[in-house]
């Protein structure tokens, strides 16, 4: 399952991600963020983090540099920021 999700993200990055101009307000981009989150924390937590990131990625937030946390329990700090 996890690998299907990862392949899906890579597939997106190599097709649509290339064609459409960049929209993501963050670095790394939402797709890269989700990819790294899934590799580090597994499918469910990874996807959860990814969705949370996409929700944050809108004109009302500042955007900017936002790497995935090193450990799962650090994720709370990200939300507080």
């Amino acid at each position: 399952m996890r690998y299907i999700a990862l392949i899906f993200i890579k597939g997106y990055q190599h097709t649509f991600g290339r064609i459409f101009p960049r929209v993501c307000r963050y670095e790394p981009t939402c797709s890269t963020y989700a990819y790294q989150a899934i590799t580090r924390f597994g499918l469910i937590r990874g996807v959860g983090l990814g969705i949370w990131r996409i929700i944050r990625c809108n004109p009302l937030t500042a955007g900017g540099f936002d790497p995935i946390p090193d450990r799962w329990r650090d994720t709370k700090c990200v939300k507080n920021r």
Partner: protein
Amino acid sequence: MREEQVRTLVAFILIIAILLLWTLFSKPRSSARAPVVPIAKDTLVMEKESPAVIVNRDTIAIDRPNYRIVLATAGGSVKSFYLKRYRAEFVPEEQYLFVTRFPGMDSVINFKYNRLGDSVIFSAVLKGNSIKKSYYFNDSSGFALSIQSDSIASVLSLNAGLRVTETKNRLDDLRHFGVYIKDKNCVNIAKKIKDVYQYRGSFEWFSMRTKYFALIINNPGRIESLDFRKILPALDKKISGIDDDRSPVNAAFGCGFGGGSTVRFGAEIPGDHNLKINVRLLPLRHDILARYNQGYQAMAELGLWGFIARIILLIFNFFYLVFRNYGVAIILFAILLKAVFFPLSRKMIVSQYKMQMLQPELKKIQAKYKNDSAALNQEMMHLYKTYKVNPFSGCLPLLIQFPIFMALYQALNTSIEFRQAHFVFWLTDLSIKDPFYVLPIGMGVMMLIQSLMTPIDPRQRFMVVIMPLFMIFIFLNLPSGLQLYWFTYNILTLVENYIVKRGGVK
């Protein structure tokens, strides 16, 4: 830079290939297949490939406020079923529906008829046994039909299937043909009908549908068997004059992307002595179907994003009530959507403007990290942060557009409201493509202007030309209602840019 462009081009080709493959594989093979299958003995009616020849043409015309029906004495059948409001005929040319046939007989017998007020009663005597077939035209959308006989079993045949009503886009109409049976749930059984499908069991109603209409047969007499069949394209060509090239590629580009079979279906109610059905011919509009409290509306569900599509349709219909024109309704809807998102897009335009002022700084960074794109991105992000600007609108606005677009596509592509909906000049039907491609090409031009107006990352300059071309390609054969929406939306984006900039940006 060169390599980047090549990779983008490859990505484009990949996407187009995926779309094409998808349409090819989601299309069932049609013409090249064995025409006859082994048939069970008890379904005598299935032995004949084409409906029996009808010679006599005595007809009885029934004119009601909503429809006009012509009955034929041959087989006591329906020769014409015409909905006045939609200007649509449902019986295929030279064909008959609700034909009464007798197992083992090749031809159809002629009935005598008697007309009494709202009813027509056919009667005949066959081998000393009498049979009576009565039509009651008591319903605003159809009729009740009953057959009574002491000892002769007869078959009621709808084997001719329904006619293609959308002559301007036959293939698209055909793609939506299907058969539903409602027992506990409403199920589309079109996929089960390989060649012949015998349904045995109770049901509340069954229906045969086209893109916009459904012929519903209610079952108060508790019939428990139905025989469905596929009308093979080769035969169909002969009997119904449908002569489109049904190659998958043609189908894909003829009616937008997406598969779907392009065959019609026939049905028969196999014989018994007595039979009682109620027939209704209704447009597939959710609100109209729901009125009957029979679960008909299950046929008008609008796919995965159906609930959003229904909200959009409500808004369209509200605008229609006021302005009596669906083209105007589409334009107003685009304005409404733009207005709702205006605060967000204002923010975006302002930040794009600020970006222009940051250009010199950006150039410096770009020169510094020429060979390390990850570091460059990171460095750029730092710059944006210090100046509190961000040139990107974010992933969420883009992703939110997707369900809205899908719902809009569903609403505009399959709703009967837009059927033959006249707008202005050459746009006489918002449910089919723009015949002169003015809207999609205009839309592409608009996109080009828009992206030339906004400062962009030089790495994406290549995209500025390709994107509009890509969008034109995608939109070329979509319904002109949808094209009109995007055309308007793009104009409004330009207007919005102008307004915000004139309003002054610090």
